[in-house]
């Protein structure tokens, strides 16, 4: 708003100011706070994050401390979730493991969506040959199941590699994200404000980041939030087949896959890590749904 309009139209300006207080994001936050399930998800995730950040204060034992007198002990008062094959307290390992799993899920989702955003914006805005080249590549990637792409990339980076796992997971779901982002850019391209920006000779980066980006970011955020839960699940799956973060680290999937060998006699080694993954993914899905309804009420059905 230019300073001129303030002096000429004071009344209208006041009305506008009131409206401005309810920007798109603050409205979305208000809607999210009214969404019970979304709030359950948000609070649950915050609690999980808090628990893993304060792990040393909360965990009753060290995640690496072995107590050979209590190997594969069933859940008891001292060890609420029992101990594993090396006598380590499962509850403490799960608390520390949140650090790996949450970080991997969050970073992988962010990396994937960010890469998809850049590629999708380029494809959608440039059009023509660039668009064709990017989208045909995505078609090829899409013809390989996402889990498989993650597996191949994880192999390329070698196992036991934190960053490699994140990139592998992020790349797995990239094709869908690029496709969605490109579609959004194509609709935004038809809008008049974009023609106006082009008409006043805005530079391409400016158009992309000041005009296109704010209009597609909300959908990408929704994709990111729902992606985190999925990434945590796929990361655990990678650990099960021996890729991704490996057993000495207390990652949830790695704990679960290490427990598989003892499933016949000590099912608690498998039950508790899986339960924690399930609860965590559930919270992220609730939050993702809540966010979608909050950011884009039109989608609500």
């Amino acid at each position, binding site marked *: 708003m230019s300073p001129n309009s303030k002096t000429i139209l004071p009344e209208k300006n006041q009305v506008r100011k009131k409206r401005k207080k309810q920007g798109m994001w603050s409205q979305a936050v208000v809607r999210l706070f009214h969404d019970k399930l979304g709030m359950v998800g948000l609070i649950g995730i915050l609690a999980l994050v808090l628990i893993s950040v304060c792990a040393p204060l909360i965990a009753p034992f060290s995640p690496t401390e072995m107590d050979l007198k209590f190997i594969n002990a069933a859940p008891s008062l001292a060890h609420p979730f029992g101990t594993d094959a090396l006598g380590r307290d499962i509850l403490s390992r799960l608390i520390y493991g949140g650090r790996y799993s949450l970080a991997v899920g969050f970073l992988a989702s962010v990396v994937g969506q960010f890469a998809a955003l850049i590629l999708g914006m380029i494809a959608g805005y440039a059009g023509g040959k660039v668009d064709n080249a990017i989208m045909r590549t995505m078609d090829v990637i899409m013809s390989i199941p996402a889990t498989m792409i993650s597996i191949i990339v994880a192999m390329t980076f070698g196992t036991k590699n934190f960053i490699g796992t994140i990139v592998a997971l992020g790349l797995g779901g990239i094709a869908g994200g690029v496709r969605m982002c490109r579609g959004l850019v194509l609709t935004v391209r038809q809008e008049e404000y974009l023609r106006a920006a082009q008409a006043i000779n805005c530079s391409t980066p400016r158009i992309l980041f000041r005009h296109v980006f704010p209009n597609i970011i909300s959908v990408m955020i929704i994709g990111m939030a729902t992606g985190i839960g999925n990434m945590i699940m796929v990361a655990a799956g990678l650990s099960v087949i021996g890729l991704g973060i490996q057993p000495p680290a207390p990652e949830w999937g790695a704990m679960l896959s290490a427990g598989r060998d003892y499933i016949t006699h000590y099912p608690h080694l498998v039950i508790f890590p899986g339960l924690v993954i*399930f609860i965590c993914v559930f919270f992220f*899905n609730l939050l993702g749904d809540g966010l979608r309804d909050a950011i884009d009420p039109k989608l609500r059905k």
Partner: protein
Amino acid sequence: MLRYVLQRLLMTIFVIIAAAILIFTVMYFVPGDPAKIILGPEATAADLADVRHQLGIDRPFLVQLGSFMYNTFIKFDMGTSWFRNTSVFGGMLERIPRTFLLGFLSIVLTSLVGIPMGVNAATHHRKWQDKGVISFAMVFMSVPEFWVALLFIIFFSLRLNILPSFGIGSWKNYVLPILSGALAGIGGIARYTRSCVLEVVHADYITTARAKGVMERKVIYQHMLPNALIPVLTNVGTSFTRCIGGTIVMEKIFSFPGVGLYLSDAIASRDYPVIRGCVIVIAAFTAILMLLVDLSYGYVDPRIKAQYVKQSTKKGKIKNVA
């Protein structure tokens, strides 16, 4: 319509070939010397060079890629497994039907349960049926497949001892993998079906049908579903491909000798020809499946056919004018 089919067919062939090039290139850059993997850490330099020559990996990249493509697509020879000393193609032929059957049965189960659930939720919008289906879907979408599989093993195989937990032999071996594979998919399909049906529930032609006095059952089955279920069809197709990808973990857990277990064993032992073969076969399979879905989509939805006819006549007109 023929042009549409041909175009999609060409695209599919391109995708399969590109996927093969992609996987070969990626595997080429995977760190580690294949000769060392085969011979172990104590091999002499002469032996290593010998094996490298045998495998043909001392040649330049493009030559290797060329001969790989020639062997795979012209001679249908995907090489020999380094550790099993059997042909990869033969190994595939033996395993593909099992994995396919597993994926097919679990997607059938998913659709048979998920689609009616979604339709039921949508036709009872905001009633208890709807809420029940939504909560059910939410929970089952969040359950990790492999965890459910392990819980099933603990319960049905170890406690009740009624179903086998590994191997293959009788129909019983299929029950647990199919159940655990389907469970996660049911939630997704039910949710998707629900939102698709809800989109047409308030369409004008539904109101018209009701106003004409068409029976409610007929409104749902003849007016609502044919329109609503078209996008669901695509979704079933894509879930099938996801299912095939998901079998890698599932087959590992149930020791089910399909393509997935072949692949994960090959990854563990770094058996490159097998890994390549598995990826190409799965990619080709996925691409062909997507082709079929797209074609059936064009067949079922007259709007797509019409769109295509219009486009070609438009182009013709422009040419005539020019």
